[in-house]
């Protein structure tokens, strides 16, 4: 067998799974002692160009509470045409269609290389994708113009048969009817009055109020006549909608001096969700919210319209001074749950210099798998390109998005699932493999992921339930099966099944093996997610203390300093934003987020990764830092002077020009693929934007330490933060003194 490194890589490539441990301790006690739980990162829709989906239904275990999918780990009796479930050991006969099965004629799902396999199944009529734009009109003219252009552009990116709808809001909310000729028609709602879904549907004429019997039941989705007024195929209303967007006015209500515009985000979202709920329940749909400021009126308001009252800060929150916070959060959570139940996801594109209330609204995206994009203005490439990238296509020319996913986890008897962390909500499905011990979103073996991209990654945590002293479980391997049902962007229903197995190891006898099977990267991310999850749901300082306790033995210096856990210098919105992305990106990206990558470019050799340390900041280097959210190109002092002097324009300094170009090219490469688009910063020594770099590097040299102060190497950072060195020193002391 190859090294663990290779094994891990191989598994990740094939199944999209990275486990914290690749050998599992065989008893609960031992597992607990390992600190890092048995857990894994799973990317359900990991792109597998080499994996053609099969066109038939999966074969399920016949035991009612198991229903595991036939997989390569099952024992098969080809003669008896019987297979044994590797989870519950139920013996099942093959369905008639498998009559021709034999050792040489095995269905794909039995082949080891198909531990991950995708089925295309028939489930009702295909339903087109739905995109519902919810657009804030309380924007500056310039912003609105840019947004309108982006939206118009997006129409050309949508699948032609996709249904599209438009809701605009400001002081009031307009639901635009798209089918009418001539006069543009819209239904209007006031932004201060909370309406029940039923009322909304009635007011939109989506159901006949007088119909008895079907009272309260939304019309069936196929009743297009009712719904089509607001949701129309792009191909049919392309022109219409383009014009409509073109004529979109800024919110016409005057904003008095000293006031914020009245923005009814809460009701707008409620109407959007109510509309979809009434027309297309359980169908893939994206509500895309574009907002340029915080909700200022009605339910879900985050801040009042008085400018003299600033929007809540972490300080306010800690002092319990954010009067709208709890109410708003509760409101949006309720909305998010409604959306999630119906499989609709909500994207948030918030572009403003100040906070926009992401803290309160984020749950809409977090729970429904929607995107959150935060920018300064809609008139920036960050937003424009990110938005474009939402509609990017894969190698098959299909959108990199999937809808209405459900992830089900099945485990061997020795394991139970404790929970998941990621853009999902619990479906509250109890089962034999559900652990009482919750980590993340637990208490269920099924989660709903309303919207998925190939990068969407969930962290799943397990508990070993085998009792100490019990023999190593039968077969020596523990297995986990992930069953993901979703609506592909081409409207097909698909099921992806991933079945993995790891060997059990007796911690006492095989502790070295277990140690060597440790996946440091995966563990870091998994633990970080746990930390973030706790940070989201608990008070700040407690989380850090917990983390310190848990991770004292891990090198998590950067994580501790990261914006995911440290709120200093970040607004609540920013924290929400960072955390949002952290809990859904795959391992590589997550690592970048935890510990930014720093490349150094110089005349002395090819670009090289360097320590994220202030000592790396040298005058004759160009640094490229990728923090996932930011891409910083930093020109050292000398380089900056040279550039300023214009040497790169001179033919004899062609090499200098190339040097300058190299980081740009690399950055471009990153920008091409990253979602959301990172903030791109080109700065130099002494530049104001250099702070982005300086805040990230390890402050090994500061104004008050002895190391190299005033020396040539590196740049001192003016901070009171502890440096890695100090952190390590402290850590060592703790490690020694602690009795743990």
């Amino acid at each position, binding site marked *: 067998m190859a090294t663990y490194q290779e094994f891990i890589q191989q598994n990740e490539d094939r199944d999209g799974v990275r486990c914290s441990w690749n050998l599992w301790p065989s008893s609960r006690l031992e597992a607990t002692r390992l600190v890092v739980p048995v857990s894994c990162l799973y990317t359900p829709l990991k792109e597998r160009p080499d994996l053609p989906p099969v066109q038939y239904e999966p074969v399920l275990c016949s035991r009612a509470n198991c229903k595991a999918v036939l997989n390569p780990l099952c024992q098969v009796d080809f003669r008896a045409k019987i297979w044994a479930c590797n989870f519950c050991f139920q013996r099942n006969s093959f369905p008639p269609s498998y009559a021709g099965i034999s050792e040489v004629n095995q269905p794909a799902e039995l082949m080891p290389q198909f531990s991950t396999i995708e089925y295309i199944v028939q489930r009702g009529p295909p339903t087109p994708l739905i995109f519902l734009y919810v657009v804030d009109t309380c924007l500056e003219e310039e912003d609105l113009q840019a947004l309108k252009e982006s939206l118009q552009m997006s129409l050309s990116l949508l699948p032609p048969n996709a249904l599209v709808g438009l809701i605009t809001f400001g002081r009031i909310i307009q639901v635009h009817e798209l089918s009418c000729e*001539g006069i543009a028609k819209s239904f209007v709602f*006031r932004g201060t*009055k909370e309406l029940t879904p039923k009322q909304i549907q009635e007011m939109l004429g989506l159901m006949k109020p007088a119909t008895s019997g079907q009272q309260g039941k939304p019309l069936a989705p196929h009743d297009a006549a009712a719904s089509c007024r607001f949701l129309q195929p792009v191909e049919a209303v392309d022109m219409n909608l383009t014009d409509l967007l073109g004529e979109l006015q800024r919110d*016409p209500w005057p904003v008095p001096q000293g006031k914020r515009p009245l923005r009814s985000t809460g009701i707008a979202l409620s109407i959007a969700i109510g509309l979809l709920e009434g027309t297309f329940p359980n169908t893939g749909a994206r509500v895309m919210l574009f907002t340029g400021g915080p909700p200022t009126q009605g339910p879900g308001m985050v801040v009042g319209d008085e400018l003299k009252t600033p929007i809540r800060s972490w300080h306010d929150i800690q002092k319990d001074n954010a009067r709208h916070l709890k109410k708003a959060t509760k409101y949006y959570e309720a909305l998010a749950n409604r959306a999630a139940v119906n499989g609709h996801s909500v994207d948030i594109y918030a572009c403003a210099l100040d906070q926009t209330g992401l803290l309160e609204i984020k749950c809409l995206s977090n729970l429904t798998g929607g995107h959150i994009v935060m920018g300064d203005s809609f008139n920036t490439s960050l937003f424009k390109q990110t938005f474009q990238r939402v509609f990017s296509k894969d190698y098959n020319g299909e959108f990199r998005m999937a809808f209405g996913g459900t992830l089900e986890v099945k485990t061997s008897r020795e394991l139970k699932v404790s929970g998941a962390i990621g853009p999902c909500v619990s479906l509250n499905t109890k089962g034999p493999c559900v652990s009482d011990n919750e980590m993340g979103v637990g208490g269920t073996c099924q989660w709903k992921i309303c919207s998925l991209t190939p990068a969407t990654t969930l962290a799943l945590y397990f508990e070993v339930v085998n009792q100490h002293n019990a023999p190593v479980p039968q077969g020596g391997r523990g297995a986990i099966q992930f069953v993901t049902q979703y609506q592909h962007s081409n409207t097909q229903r698909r099921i992806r099944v991933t079945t993995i197995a790891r060997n059990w190891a007796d911690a006492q006898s095989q502790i070295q093996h277990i140690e060597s099977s440790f996946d440091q990267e995966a563990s870091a991310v998994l633990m970080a997610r746990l930390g973030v999850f706790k940070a989201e749901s608990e008070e700040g300082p407690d989380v850090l203390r917990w983390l310190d306790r848990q991770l004292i033995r891990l090198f998590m210096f950067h994580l501790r300093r990261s914006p995911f856990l440290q709120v200093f210098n970040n607004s609540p919105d920013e924290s929400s934003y960072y955390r949002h992305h952290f809990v859904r990106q795959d391992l590589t990206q997550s690592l970048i987020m935890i510990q930014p990558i720093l490349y150094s470019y110089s005349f002395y050799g090819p670009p090289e990764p360097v320590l994220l340390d202030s000592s790396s900041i040298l005058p004759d280097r160009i640094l490229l830092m990728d923090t996932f959210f930011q891409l910083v190109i930093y020109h050292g002092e000398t380089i900056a002077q040279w550039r300023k002097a214009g040497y790169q324009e001179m033919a004899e300094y062609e090499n200098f020009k190339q040097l300058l170009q190299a980081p740009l090219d690399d950055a471009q490469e990153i920008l091409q693929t990253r979602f959301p688009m990172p903030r791109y910063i080109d700065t130099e020594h002494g530049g104001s934007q250099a702070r982005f770099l300086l805040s990230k590097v390890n402050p090994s040299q500061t104004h008050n330490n002895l190391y190299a102060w005033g020396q040539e190497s590196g740049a001192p950072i003016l901070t009171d933060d502890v440096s890695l060195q100090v952190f390590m020193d402290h850590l060592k002391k703790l490690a020694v003194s602690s009795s743990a």
Partner: protein
Amino acid sequence: MENEHVYLQVRDELRMNVNQQPHMATPYGQPQPGYQGYPQPGYGGDHVPSGYPAQYAPYNGPGSAYQQGPPQGTRGPPTSGAPPVSGAQNYSQFGQGENQNGPPPMGAPPQRPPVSQPYTPGAVNLPGPQHPYGQRFGAPPVSMQHMTNQMASMQVGSTAPSPAGPGYAPPSVSQAAVSAPYTTSAPPTFTPPTTATSQPPPTEALAQAPPHSYYGALPPVQQPFQNAVPTFSSAGPTQPQAPPPVSPQSFPQAPPISQPPFSTAQVHPGPTQSYRGPLPSTQSSFPRPPHPTSQPSAFPAGPPPTSIPSQLPGVMQPQPPVSQPSPYHSGPPTTSTGFPPQVGAPPRPSFPGMQGPPMASQGPPMASQGPPMASQGPPMAQANHILPTQPGMPPGPINASLSGPPPQPGMQGYPPQQNGAFGQVRGPQPGYTGPYPGQPNYGAPPAAPASAPAAPKRLDPDSIPSPIQVIEDDKANKGSEPFTTGVRGQAPPLVTTKFQVKDQGNASPRYIRCTAYNMPCNSDMAKQSQVPLAAVIKPLAPLPPDETPPYLVDHGESGPIRCNRCKAYMCPYMQFIEGGRRFQCGFCNCVTEVPPNYFQHLDHTGKRVDCYDRPELSMGSYDFMTTVDYCKNNKFPQPPAFIFLIDVSYNAVKNGTVGIVCQELKTLLDYLPRENPDVESNIRVGFVTYNKVLHFYNVKASLAQPQMMVVSDVADMFVPLLDGFLVSVSESRVVIESLLDQIPEMFADTRETETVFGPVIQAGLEALKAADCAGKLFVFHSSLPIAEAPGKLKNREDKKLVGTDKEKTLFQPQVSFYNTLAKECVAQGCCVDLFLFPNQYVDVATLGVVPTSTGGSIYKYTYFQAPSDQERFLNDLRRDVQKQVGFDAVMRVRTSTGIRATDFFGAFYMSNTTDVELAGLDCDKTVTVEFRHDDKLSEETGALMQCAVLYTSCSGQRRLRIHNMAVNCCSQLADLYRNCETDTIINFFAKYAYRSVLSSPTKNVRDSLVNQCAQILACYRKNCASPSSAGQLILPECMKLLPVYLNCVLKSDVLQPGADVSLDDRAYLRQLVSTMDVAESHVFFYPHLLPLQKLDVESMALPMAVRDSEERLSRGGVYLLENGLNIFLWVGVSAQQELLQNIFGTPAFSQIDPNMTSLPALDNPFSKRLREIIESVRAQRSRYMKLMVVKQEDKLELIFKHFLVEDKSNSGGASYVDFLCHMHKEIRQLLS
């Protein structure tokens, strides 16, 4: 004026009525059959010309007959008079009169249609006068019912003899006494009565029955005729003999008919016939001729007198008249000569007669007044004093004779007047006669003279005060020279008179009309008289082009100068003192410093030198510029906005209103009101359509297409947009036109039938709030708002409640939502105009709450059909949009210390007791203000009032319109009664009553109206008229039309609905009347009826109007009737072909399309002139009147007849004559 009183011999009338009524009935119902028969016989010859004409002739005849009647009437009076002791006195006085009357009777017989002519030669004159009386009596028939009792008694004596006798029999007993007096006058006649007395008992019963029948219903009419006829025939011959039987018969029949009148009629057979003669009955009268024969014999015996007596009590009187007649002849020979012709035209003569009596009775008062009156007096006097009292009365006509014969002192005073009056009267009469085709007929009738004599006894409608006469007299007297307002307490010309006003310190009557121009000094007097003290104020009334609009006064930054205490504005009543340094308020007497910049020296009379340079010191009406202090929130107002809210539910789309409105608005928007015609209007416009949800439209100029915004949250209405909703027409014209083009298309296929209403107004209100301006909503609505929303209504139409104590709930809004909403609207200055297009019940009472509380108007187009109603709707809409209007108005009326404005009527809201708040005040809106004493007034200073209206003009300026009015104060009731204006009083009464139905059962409201009116008249009778027989009805000259107009109010659809009047219509009319000015209310209650066959194509003048009674209609004529809401063109069955050809382009009656709504534009002078007239009539009214062509005997005629307000109405409303008698009874009760 001159003659303060109008005397009516009610009793006679009653009798007369009896007779007439039957006739009346016949005319309407069977007329033809019966008539034909009759006509042929008697009239036949006369009328012969055309079958129908014959009928008409009868009508005319009736007229003549009535004239003859007068004498009878006179007789009647005596009877009535007789009962009361006073009557006797009268008689004594009248002795002469009686004599005079006596002659009339003589004449009377002849007078009857035919007679008159014959008489002319001989005693023609006499007949003339007599006839008039007869007619008067004829009219009374209606009253007959009521009167019967009285009459009975009265008549008994005299009447007894005649058929009436029986009926009256019971009364006879009492009458007996009466008769005594009469006997003196005409013993012979009485004898018959005695006979009658014997018969009486049965008659009485009969008599009573009749009355009931009257009340009952008209239907019987036809029967009556038949019956009547026969009865007549029977009765006619020998009244005494036949009477009993006849009467019985007649009664039975009569009762059904309506009228007991018949019963009475029977009694009077002879007279009746004559009466009938005039009307359809005329024919009957003709039949009589045969009877006459019998009678004749009687007559011959007692010649005139005898005959009269024989006829009835009336007869008795007649006799006196007879004697009178002679006087007349002798006295006013000339007149007599004049009369002859008049005889032909009974009406006038009657008047004279009427007057005459009054004169006599009133003698003293008259005398006093007489002088002044003299000039005008004659006519007035006549009209006023209707001498129920008979003998005397009859003489009246004879005034001339009176002067001579009566010789009484008092009389002398009068005589001149009377004489004059007569002369004048006669003049007018001729005119009347003219109008009535009858005259010619009369010519023919003469043949029947014999019968005529018998007939005379009826009460002649021509003998009771005629609105037309009064109107014409006023025109003649006051229409020629400008009315200057400088003289305090001067009553202006009537609203029907065209006149020019010169503002010399008091507000023009176009702005303010008062019920009394001489107010009682103290509340005791006011209470005693019961004359309402009220002013009808139309603050923004439009002026004719030849009058100067109010000047705009600017007192600079400090704002208008006002009294420190009562805050009255500077006006001519402010007295400058101390060399001009201070001024004393005319209202509260407080002394205020004159601001330095306003100081001016005084001249030797104490007037400011610049008095005539400053409108506020010399004019009655002017505008003030105001300062920001007068603005809401201390902020100058924004220009107002108009918002059009259009119902686009299924009904509205289907009946075409959506298309029509949208189409019209495209052009109409160019005519928004503006102050300077050269500048664009500042008014912004907005559009909303709705069914059960609302659609707002963004019509911002920068849009290529309008945008529609649907608000379905009707439970919590809000305005979805601000910028782009209210726009300037010129800037957004393209978008607006595009919108108006598309609205009808968009909703062409709508299936939505439910509508909301409350949220619609809320929407408009919210829009105005959002825009921070005042404005007006134009709501075009079609159906009951049953959709789930605030202000949702249910159908509560329940006709069973009509007539019960719960009837008032039908006028009340069914939910309080709209009251609250209205309050909010007023606070914002949001005026609501509602255009309704209902196909069924829409609950106008509730929907109208907001419009009527915000100074808005309601227009209702029931069963709207585009082809026929479009014109009317569009014209209303155009006018409504274009008319001058002020917004966010507050009106306050300040008065002299001593009186106080206590009650207000109109379309407005009041949040306290003094400020009338009008969200919108347009040029048609009127507020009626009632005043009460809270202290004494002085005769010196009179009573001052100042009406100040603060409003925002259509250009957004905040202004004050000031109207000042001063009236005299009196300590004598007589002065009060001399300076009243009946039209205004009626306006007040109507509004008062129409409001009262909200809180009281309708019947109580009617009763209290009658009661108040009776008190007014009784007070006059008691305090201002000379003592006279209680049987004499004496009316103040100024109020002589009060009964007829009041009757019109009482029988209006609101107070006495017919079966076919919907609850919505009643609520609609109720609300409509509340904002009417005097001119509108006048024509509304007493429609204007023009005989087109009399139209002189060459002249600009209109033919003289005809009284609103079917008997005035000629079958050969075409009439135009308008009441401010509708125009009817009534075409007689036998209208001349040439006339039809000229009007309709077809000579055939049958080919006239009754559905036409406009007359064909034919190229002949008549057609042109007629259409001109229609147009000019329409132009005078605030609402466009749809033309309806009514063919005689067509189904539609029922509707038309509804507007013939002097007749009995289907709904049980009394005829003029009946009501007059009833009123008389009430008065007598009060007096006794």
